[in-house]
């Protein structure tokens, strides 16, 4: 059923656990934030992630990757979630790789090895407004000469400010089409948007951006299916990251309850607090199962994985939020301070909730 890890996956989990705790602890995100770093991630970390094979975890072996599947990608993301590690993993190694694998062989052969070696970063531009809504893409690609002209805007393009290439979803005459365009193409204006979680995205305006047929990923008008596959990959891996963040903030809170004293007692003795933690523990265990089941479905039955991915993202949307909110409250005033990491988890979880659909979005998907 895939709910238990294989030996290979356990080894990967252990190595990712040590790696991110060592190379990308929360203090790294804090330092990037405080230094107002222009990229918002550590290039050194990304280089090491490519050496570890993490960047190419979904890339086929003949293109230089390790091809371990979504379960492995989720295990890596979970550890990144625990440490709030900022990196282009989601945009480049999950979203872009999945898109390229479903595109033409030529583009994949060229770009996938460059992703594995860390040479290029690629971002996905889908949403245009404040809420995830891939059904309502307004950016248009109108035929022009041998190719198309792109006009419209995109928002929350994760890592859009540092990417070398942008995969953009555009409306064409009879459906959606995915294009891949260089970030420095003429007519594309990119504005970095620093988000509440100190990570980065970009707002983009496409003004008569010219693309050729060779830049189409897949087929013209047939992009909706690929986009859906790509988004599901992103949703499941993001859910895994949220699981890591939830587990970590829960454990930090549990430790705090064993140290903090009031009324001459360890506050963890109070039953009112114990029951809130015990309930949260149960919810996180259910969340963990739903993530494992969604990743396993993507690996084993990708065609029918959609509802499982939506259930997992919806479940994590509510459980991660609960974990963050309870952690702030149970830390009392300390939870409100910037000195503790709790607030950083609250912020990242809030962003991850929104990305690629919050609980409401996915419940609506399932209702359809």
């Amino acid at each position, binding site marked *: *059923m895939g*709910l*238990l890890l294989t030996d290979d996956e356990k080894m990967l989990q252990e190595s990712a656990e040590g790696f991110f705790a060592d190379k990308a602890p929360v203090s790294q995100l804090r330092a990037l934030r405080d230094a107002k770093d222009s990229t918002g991630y550590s290039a050194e970390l990304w280089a090491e992630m490519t050496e570890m094979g993490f960047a190419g975890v979904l890339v086929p072996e003949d293109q230089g990757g390790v091809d371990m599947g979504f379960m492995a990608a989720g295990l890596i993301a979970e550890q990144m979630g625990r440490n709030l590690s900022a990196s282009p993993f989601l945009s480049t190694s999950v979203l872009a790789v999945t898109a390229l694998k479903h595109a033409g062989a030529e583009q994949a052969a060229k770009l996938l090895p460059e992703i594995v070696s860390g040479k290029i970063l690629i971002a996905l531009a889908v949403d245009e407004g404040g809420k995830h809504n891939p059904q309502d893409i307004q950016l248009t690609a109108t035929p022009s000469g041998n190719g198309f002209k792109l006009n419209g805007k995109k928002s929350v393009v994760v890592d859009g400010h540092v990417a070398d290439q942008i995969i953009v979803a555009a409306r064409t005459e009879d459906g959606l089409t995915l294009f891949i365009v260089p970030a420095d193409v003429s007519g594309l204006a990119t504005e970095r948007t620093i988000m509440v979680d100190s990570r980065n995205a970009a707002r983009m305006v496409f003004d008569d951006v010219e693309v050729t047929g060779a830049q189409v990923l897949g087929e013209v008008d047939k992009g909706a299916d690929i986009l859906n596959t790509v988004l599901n990959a992103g949703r499941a891996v993001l859910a895994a990251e949220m699981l890591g963040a939830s587990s970590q903030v829960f454990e930090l809170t*549990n430790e705090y*309850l*064993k140290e903090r004293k009031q009324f001459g*007692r*360890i506050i*963890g*003795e*109070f*039953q009112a607090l*114990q*029951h809130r*933690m*015990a*309930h949260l*523990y*149960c919810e996180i*265990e*259910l*969340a*963990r*199962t*739903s993530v*494992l*089941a969604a990743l396993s479905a993507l690996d084993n039955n990708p065609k029918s994985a959609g509802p499982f991915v939506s*259930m997992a993202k*919806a*479940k994590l949307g509510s459980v991660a939020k609960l974990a963050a909110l309870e952690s702030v409250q149970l830390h009392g005033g300390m939870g409100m301070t910037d000195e503790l990491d709790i607030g950083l988890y609250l912020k990242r979880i809030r962003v991850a909730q929104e990305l690629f659909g919050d609980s409401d979005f996915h*419940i609506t998907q*399932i*209702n359809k």
Partner: protein
Amino acid sequence: MSDLELFRAETREWLEGNCPPEMRTPMNRETDACWGGRNWVYSSNDQKIWLERMAAKGWTAPSWPKEYGGAGLSRAEAKVLEQEMKRIQARPALLSFGIWMLGPALLKFGSDAQKMRYLPEICRGEIRWCQGYSEPNAGSDLASLATKCEDKGDHFLVNGSKVWTSYADESDWIFCLVRTDASGKKHHGISFILFDMESEGVSTKPIKLISGRSPFCETFFDDVKVPKENLVGERDKGWSIAKYLLTHEREMIGDSGNLKPVAQMVAEMGITPDAALQTKITELTIDEWAFSQTMSRMLAEAKAGASLGAKSSMLKYYGTELNKRRYEVMMDAAGTDGLEWESERSNDGDLARKWLRTKGNSIEGGTSEIQLNIIAKHILQLPGT
């Protein structure tokens, strides 16, 4: 063909040939479920035949050793049997506290003589057991139980009372927690004994519940003589058996893995939910799915035969609370149709009575609050007060 595939093929063939047609239809009346025992009145000849055939195969307790009436199946084989029975919608041949609760305790703590004496007749459905745990003053605080058990040389003498004894009025024997020593700490001095409900001095009184039904009784013991050999395990050390059994019970009560999804129940009621209700149903669907998958994951993670320990509290807590939520949503869906109490149309208030019954799920077998205490203490390692 692997051994397991061979087993599946043989099982399928046997079930096809031996499960009577009536035993492949849904259970609608209470008497459709077969509890066995000395006074059991079979609702049909097929029910009797089905129990006899399954018991002869050892399949009423498939994973128990053959010498005690089981079939000695491995966990994987037992799973195959379960799947194959589900495939033809076969009814369980026997529902039994003997199989679910007493049996596992006897297998672990009983003497050889006790195993030989009690287990085979449990497997054959000849003796129906009830569980004497809770007392009027020992509910959540079970270890403070006070039913007195005195050593009278050649026998024990039992005096006291139990409450919430499931089906005590229909049971043949009871497995019972009694106080053999009241001088020390409350967890010490508890013993686990077995006796016949027809013994002189035993009486029962059904408790009518808010559902209008009476699955539980008050049970009274007035100078009941119990043979010494009916003590299970060591005298005064019955609390460890009690805890072991409670863990089993929790896993069972929490098991909603086989429940029909609420979305399907609502659809079968012929209701088309509006958007707000549909959202509630979907939220529940997600939790039903995540819970049943979590159950599978935890059972798979636990080594074969190993207990889930404190994690069973999580399953008990979440599973019972989930079931309460399920019935609240079904009542929302049914509207006033779900409030009919005595009518043919409502099958005598079936939904309403089930809804009311679920309120007890988070109380029996240790309340939700007790389960949360156990999780906080044993899993989260939070300090005690």
